[in-house]
């Protein structure tokens, strides 16, 4: 690719801002200056679909009603481990209003004790068995109650500890390949290591394998901290449940989906039903939240399609709250052993980590990544084991593996600091090489007033205050297969198209900002049409990849469209188009002040009705760390927590969080604040409240609802102060990245450290409950 040399902003304004020269593709736009010199970027631009959301006009998948539409309900297993011997649907079939029943059948032999069975083996309570389509949801539910499933029940195991025992019931007999990193739900493959229900260890991540020599590292250490930390299973529970509406006509299957990845759902449905991708269209105009589990078509997608096929009518299939909890993903738990050594001057000499976690019938419960990269340490090794249980599958959940890992690592670092007699924040200045986190520590500590921090447990009275800090890092991921079309219409109007969806982060708005900035327009003059696989393919909303992946193509496409439009104007003015610029809704001749025309007038010069440019993304300027799109730099955060602990009742309240974050070039301050608030609140929830409670004797989740599955409501929300550090890396035409995942990593660790500071006793397990506080204080 032809490149040109260009200077781009580099570093942190107010700290070390400079310029760096990069080779950039010749067809890409010139470098943007820093945000203060831009019109819309980095400003508080209103969310463009906010009006639809506050008036109730926004139509989510669950809100759709197509002519002739049927409502479907899934039939699910009520036992945790069984062979299905028979399913009697005769009564259900006869119920008035029932149109079709579809049972999931064994398509291929699974090589287990059930090889001749008609139906797949049941491995957890809630596993889909079939589905019913009826005139109304109520009728579908009635019909469900009329189906009798006969199970030959097998021994099962629910909790992590029991599943690891030698004589534990085996969840999967065949070998299963383990994912190297947390967050992926594994599939069944041949050829893995592991015994019984324990798979692994995996010893690497995409940052590579072990380094150095642990033994030498620990020999060099003057101080060693060694502990086991435990985190719970918690479930995603987006407010809009998983689900689809499938409208399958002879020429096209249209899938309306509440999904984080329209393109992936399209590909999956096409593959399952043997259709060309061009015959499957997935649409997601609005979606009611997703935190990692909504990337696939699931089992409900194919189920709705099968029912649509059988009935010839559109089928609505949204899960209910209980199904959402038990079957559609969770953040796996972990038992993490962590050993860290340091010299007297604080230098880290060795980090050893060993973890076990369960993603139920799925895999990918690893937690090692953050310990591998947050602090420079010459000797590192991890062993991460997945433990299979008869419970619903794990799924990626906002910074998979890192949130669990940070809870252990950041407490261990605090403990090391205490042993070395250094303030924990000052200790991070010694061992953390990241410039962005250095600035975040400085600015955050000032805003938070870290100097108030007292010795652990030294507070007077019943309610003790505590201050704590936690840090995080998240990679800059990029999905290379990210494209945007920008259309300029004759007579005015600009349109953006991509299959990328907006899960609530504000993707529509940042796309409009980027294109409007490039064209010198206002955001309102740009229409954003996304979430439709008929448009150029965009990334999935996961890994915090969207902003970094999709905004450069949007800017590049707008730039190309602008060039073409300016050529027309230049011809009319008999000048060179390089003399022209667009701002404030007008085209100017920089060489002749008398020549200007409105954007609308300029589009009137078009010979055809539209200029359409589809651009994708070049590699990051300066290359990648990994060829598939892992970019250089870290999205760092430092979070400070202030808590009150009632030492009589054990009640913990988070009073305040200061969250200092970077995301490259910030695009929309209001939306960034929203996402950071959300990450923090989910972190508070993880630290103190959420916990999946299983009945080990039946395999049922005991709190699969909203009232007993405790999450924070208004009364539990702390004061949250966000601090966004602008940080230029000169990596793309927008140099922007996402913040969804980084926002969630450090909170629980910061709260745990603050609780220790309050009461002087460390809690090694979350959620931190009144009972665990009272136990720690020897009061029960």
């Amino acid at each position, binding site marked *: 690719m032809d490149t040109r040399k260009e200077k781009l902003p580099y570093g942190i304004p107010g700290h070390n801002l400079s310029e760096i020269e990069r080779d950039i593709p010749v067809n890409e736009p010139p470098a943007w200056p820093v945000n203060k010199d831009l019109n819309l970027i980095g400003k508080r631009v209103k969310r463009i679909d906010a009006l639809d959301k506050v008036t109730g006009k926004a139509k989510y998948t669950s809100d759709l009603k197509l002519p002739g539409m049927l409502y479907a309900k899934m039939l699910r297993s009520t036992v945790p481990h069984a062979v299905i011997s028979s399913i009697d649907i005769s009564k259900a079939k006869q119920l008035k209003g029932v149109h079709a029943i579809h049972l999931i059948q064994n398509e291929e032999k699974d090589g287990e004790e059930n090889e001749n069975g008609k139906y797949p083996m049941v491995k957890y309570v809630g596993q889909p068995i079939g589905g019913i389509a009826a005139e109304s949801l109520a009728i579908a539910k009635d019909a469900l109650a009329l189906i009798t499933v006969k199970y030959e029940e097998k021994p099962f195991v629910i909790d992590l500890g029991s599943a690891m025992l030698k004589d534990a019931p085996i969840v999967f007999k065949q070998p299963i390949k383990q994912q190297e990193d947390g967050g992926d739900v594994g599939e069944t493959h041949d050829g893995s290591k592991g015994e019984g229900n324990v798979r692994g260890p995996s010893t690497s991540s995409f940052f590579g394998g072990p380094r150095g020599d642990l033994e030498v590292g620990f020999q060099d250490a003057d101080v060693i901290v060694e502990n086991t930390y435990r985190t719970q299973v918690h479930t995603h529970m987006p407010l*809009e449940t998983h689900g689809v509406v499938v409208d399958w006509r002879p020429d096209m299957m249209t899938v309306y989906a509440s999904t984080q990845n329209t393109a992936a759902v399209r590909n999956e449905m096409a593959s399952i039903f043997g259709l060309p991708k061009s015959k499957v269209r997935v649409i997601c105009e609005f979606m009611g939240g997703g935190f990692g589990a909504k990337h696939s078509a699931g089992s409900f997608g194919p189920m709705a399609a099968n029912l649509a096929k059988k009935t010839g009518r559109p089928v609505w299939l949204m899960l209910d709250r209980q199904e959402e909890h038990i079957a559609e993903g969770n953040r796996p738990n972990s038992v993490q052993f962590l050993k860290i050594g340091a010299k007297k001057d604080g230098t880290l000499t060795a980090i050893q980590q060993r973890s076990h976690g369960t993603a139920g019938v799925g895999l990918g419960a690893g937690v090692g990544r953050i310990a591998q990269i947050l602090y420079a340490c010459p000797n590192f090794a991890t062993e991460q084991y997945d433990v299979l249980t008869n419970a619903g599958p794990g799924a990626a959940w906002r910074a998979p593996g890192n949130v669990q890992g940070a809870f252990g690592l950041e407490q261990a670092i605090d403990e090391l600091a205490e042993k070395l007699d250094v303030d924990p924040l000052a200790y991070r200045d010694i061992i953390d090489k990241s410039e962005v986190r250095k600035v975040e520590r400085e600015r955050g500590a000032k805003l938070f007033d870290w100097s108030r921090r007292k010795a652990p447990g030294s507070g007077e009275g019943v309610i003790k205050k505590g201050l704590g800090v936690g840090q995080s890092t998240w990679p800059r991921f990029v999905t290379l297969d990210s494209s945007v079309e920008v259309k300029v219409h004759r007579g005015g109007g600009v349109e953006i198209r991509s299959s990328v969806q907006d*899960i609530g982060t504000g993707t529509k708005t940042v796309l409009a900002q980027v294109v409007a900035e490039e064209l010198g327009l206002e955001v309102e003059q740009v229409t954003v049409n996304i979430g439709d696989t008929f448009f150029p393919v965009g990334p999935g909303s996961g890994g915090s990849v969207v902003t970094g992946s999709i905004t450069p193509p949007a800017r590049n496409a707008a730039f190309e469209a602008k060039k073409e439009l300016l050529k027309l104007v230049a011809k009319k003015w008999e000048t060179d188009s390089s003399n022209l610029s667009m701002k404030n809704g007008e085209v100017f001749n920089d060489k002749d002040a008398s020549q200007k025309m409105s954007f609308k007038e300029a589009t009137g010069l078009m010979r055809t009705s539209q200029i359409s440019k589809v651009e994708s993304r070049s590699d990051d300027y300066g290359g990648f760390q990994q060829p598939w799109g892992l970019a250089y730099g870290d999205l760092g955060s430092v979070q400070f927590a202030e808590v009150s602990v009632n030492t009589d009742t054990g009640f913990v309240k988070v009073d305040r969080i200061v969250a200092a974050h970077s995301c490259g070039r910030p695009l929309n301050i*209001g939306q960034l604040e929203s996402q950071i608030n959300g990450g923090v609140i989910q972190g508070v929830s993880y630290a103190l409240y959420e916990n999946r409670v299983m009945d080990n004797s039946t395999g049922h989740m005991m709190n699969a609802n909203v009232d007993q599955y405790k999450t*924070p*409501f208004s009364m539990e929300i702390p004061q949250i102060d966000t601090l966004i550090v602008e940080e230029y890396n000169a990596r793309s035409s927008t140099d922007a990245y996402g913040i969804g995942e980084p926002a969630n990593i450090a909170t629980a660790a910061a709260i745990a450290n603050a609780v220790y500071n309050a009461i002087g006793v460390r809690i090694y397990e979350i959620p931190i409950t009144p009972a665990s506080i009272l136990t720690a204080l020897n009061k029960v």
Partner: protein
Amino acid sequence: MEDKKQDANPGSKKGFSRRSFIRGAGLSTAGSVLLTTNAFAFEYEEGYSEGKEYGPGATLIQLKVNGSVQTLSVEPRTTLASALRDHLDLTGTKVVCDRGSCSACTVYVDDKPVNSCMMSVFDVVDKEITTIEGIAQNGKLHPVQEAFIEHDASQCGYCTPGMVMSCAHLLDNNPDPSLEDVKRATRGNLCRCGTHPHVFKATLDAAKKSS
């Protein structure tokens, strides 16, 4: 449970009893209020339909929603939330938990906020229902709606209608609320994206601007 069985059997002579539906629903309401921070325990009054039984089939009723009278055919077990969403296509009212624990389905019944998933539609036929679609007046947004847009108080937006209803009701009845008042007004509103800080800010700002 017994009712469900009967209902599942269209041949049954005995109709579905609205009263037993309500008894079940009422118990859940009380239970969830005890268990959670849920805001609204609607004081149920068996006024309108005392003594009547409906069903088993659908019945024609009239509902006064957002100032206009609508006729719809509903089964006895239909909740207000379902009537609004499934029969009148007023899908701004969201169903998230379907058991009165999250306030996503908040609407006003005679100007009182209630969880519409917990109400039988037969009990509100003589009352004024206001939904999220009806709180803008004469094409002008409620000040709380304006402020939600201004302060980015929605993310995925699924809890937003319920949040707006709770906050708008607060301002309509208390023009000068404190932060604690806003928190109390929204204490039953679950939001998974964590928009609360901006919701608080927006509501306080709307109050300031309206006063």
